[in-house]
C-alpha cells in the first residue's frame, strides 16, 4: 500500500499539474471512504464521486409512485434496503411502513418472487440499480413467467452507466482527467463497453476492483496515462472482468427491457440511459398502473444534483451538516451509505485539525 501511495506521488509530481479523477460506482465511493484513501493521495490529485449510487440518482417521482402503489389494497412493495430511508415528496418508505403499509426489504429479487408466490398478494418490486443488478431482475421476471406467477410486477427504475458517463464527459462545467470504472458493472458489460471514453473523448479509464490496493492501482494508472499523454481503457480487474462480459445476462436483459430516455436526479433526462419493460411485458409493469401523484418536491436548497455530477464537494452544499445528516437526510446523497454526502459526512468530516 505504502509503495502505491509513493508511486502515485511520484507520478503526480512528474505530471506537474492537478488532475481530477472520478469514480462512478457507489461501492467505490464507500470503499474509498472506508479505507480513508482520499487523505493518502498527494496534493493535486482530486478524487470525486460521480453518479454511482443508484439510490441517489433515482428521482423523487419514482419514490412517490412507489408510495402510491403501496397504498393500494392488497399490494405488497418489496425493495432493496437501500431505498427505505430515501425522502420522497412526502414520506420515506420506512415512515410509510411504520404507518402501516406493507413494505418489505429483500436481499434478492428471488425473495420478492417467493413472497408473491406464498402470499398471493399483488407484489411490486422496486427495480433500481445499474448493469450489475438489472440481470438479476430480468432473471426473476423470467422465473415469474416460467412458474406462471401473475401477481409479480416491477416498477422499472434500472439505469445504464455508459450514457451517464458520456453525459458527464460532455458537460462543460466538469473537467475529468480519468475514470475509475465500476468493477462489477464491467463483469456484466465487459470492459469494452467503456472504450468510447478513450476513443471518442480522449479520457483514460481503468476498470478496478474494490480493495484499497485495487483502487490505488487504478489511480496510479490514470495519473501515469495523463503524464504520458495517453488515453486507454485498462482492465485492472481481470480476475472477473472480460472484454465482452456476461452474454447470458445480456440476452436475458434484452428479452425483457429496452433502452429508453430516463430522468436522473441532478442530470435531468439522459437519452437512452434507462431501461423500460418491452410492451409485451405490460402485465409485469407496475408503472402502467394509474395512480395519483403529488407534485414532485425537491427539497429547497438541496444541491444533490451538483454533487452527483462531481461539480461540487458535499461541504459546498448549504444543507450539508446543517440539517442534512445521515440521521436526518434531506437529499438522496445523504441517505445511502454509498451516497457521496453520506460517505463524506462519515469519513472525511474531521473537524478542526
Amino acid at each position: 500500500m505504502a509503495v502505491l501511495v509513493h508511486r502515485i506521488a511520484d507520478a503526480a509530481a512528474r505530471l506537474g499539474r492537478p488532475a481530477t479523477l472520478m469514480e462512478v460506482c457507489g461501492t467505490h465511493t464507500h470503499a474509498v471512504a472506508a479505507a480513508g484513501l482520499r487523505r493518502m493521495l498527494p496534493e493535486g490529485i482530486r478524487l470525486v464521486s460521480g453518479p454511482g449510487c443508484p439510490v441517489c440518482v433515482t428521482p423523487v417521482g419514482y419514490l412517490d409512485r412507489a408510495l402510491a402503489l403501496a397504498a393500494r389494497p392488497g399490494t405488497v412493495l418489496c425493495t432493496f434496503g437501500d431505498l427505505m430511508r430515501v425522502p420522497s415528496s412526502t414520506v420515506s418508505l420506512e415512515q410509510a411502513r411504520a404507518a402501516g403499509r406493507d413494505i418489505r426489504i429483500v436481499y434478492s429479487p428471488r425473495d420478492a418472487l417467493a413472497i408473491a408466490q406464498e402470499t398471493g398478494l399483488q407484489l411490486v418490486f422496486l427495480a433500481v440499480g445499474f448493469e450489475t443488478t438489472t440481470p438479476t431482475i430480468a432473471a426473476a421476471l423470467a422465473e415469474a413467467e416460467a412458474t406462471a406467477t401473475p401477481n409479480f410486477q416491477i416498477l422499472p427504475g434500472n439505469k445504464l452507466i455508459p450514457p451517464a458517463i458520456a453525459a458527464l464527459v460532455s458537460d462543460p462545467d466538469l473537467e475529468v482527467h480519468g475514470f475509475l470504472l465500476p468493477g462489477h458493472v464491467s463483469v456484466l458489460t465487459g470492459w469494452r463497453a467503456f472504450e468510447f471514453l478513450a476513443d471518442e473523448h480522449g479520457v483514460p479509464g481503468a476498470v478496478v476492483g474494490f480493495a484499497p490496493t485495487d483502487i490505488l492501482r487504478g489511480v496510479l494508472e490514470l495519473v501515469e496515462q495523463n503524464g504520458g499523454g495517453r488515453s486507454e481503457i485498462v482492465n485492472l480487474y481481470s480476475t472477473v472482468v472480460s472484454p465482452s462480459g456476461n452474454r447470458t445476462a445480456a440476452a436475458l436483459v434484452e428479452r425483457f427491457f429496452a433502452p429508453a430516455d430516463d430522468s436522473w436526479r441532478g442530470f435531468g433526462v439522459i437519452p437512452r440511459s434507462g431501461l423500460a419493460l418491452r410492451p409485451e411485458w405490460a402485465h409485469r409493469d407496475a408503472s402502467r398502473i394509474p395512480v395519483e401523484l403529488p407534485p414532485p418536491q425537491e427539497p429547497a436548497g438541496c444541491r444533490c444534483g451538483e454533487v452527483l455530477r462531481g461539480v461540487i464537494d458535499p461541504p459546498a452544499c448549504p444543507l450539508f451538516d446543517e440539517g442534512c445528516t445521515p440521521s436526518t437526510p434531506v437529499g438522496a446523497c445523504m441517505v445511502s451509505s454509498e451516497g457521496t454526502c453520506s460517505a463524506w459526512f462519515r469519513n472525511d468530516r474531521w473537524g478542526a485539525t
Partner: protein
Amino acid sequence: MCLAIPMRLIERGENEGVVELDGVRRTVSLMLLPDAAVGQHLLIHAGYAIGAVDEVEAETTLALLRELADAMVDP
C-alpha cells in the same frame, strides 16, 4: 450498487447451487451463469451468480500484489 463477493460453488442443480465462503453457505440462482462448475469461485450479487473468477488471472493479480507488498520504496 455493486456489492458482489466471490464464493465457491460446492453443489449445483439445474438452476440453483450452493456457494460457500469461510464456512458460510447460501443457495443462489445460476440462471445468469448456467455453465458454472462445482469448485469454481463465482461472484454473487443479490442472490445470483453474475460471473466467474478466472483462476489464472487471479493468480497473476495475487503475484502482482505480493510483488508490491515486497517492493522497497526508493530512497
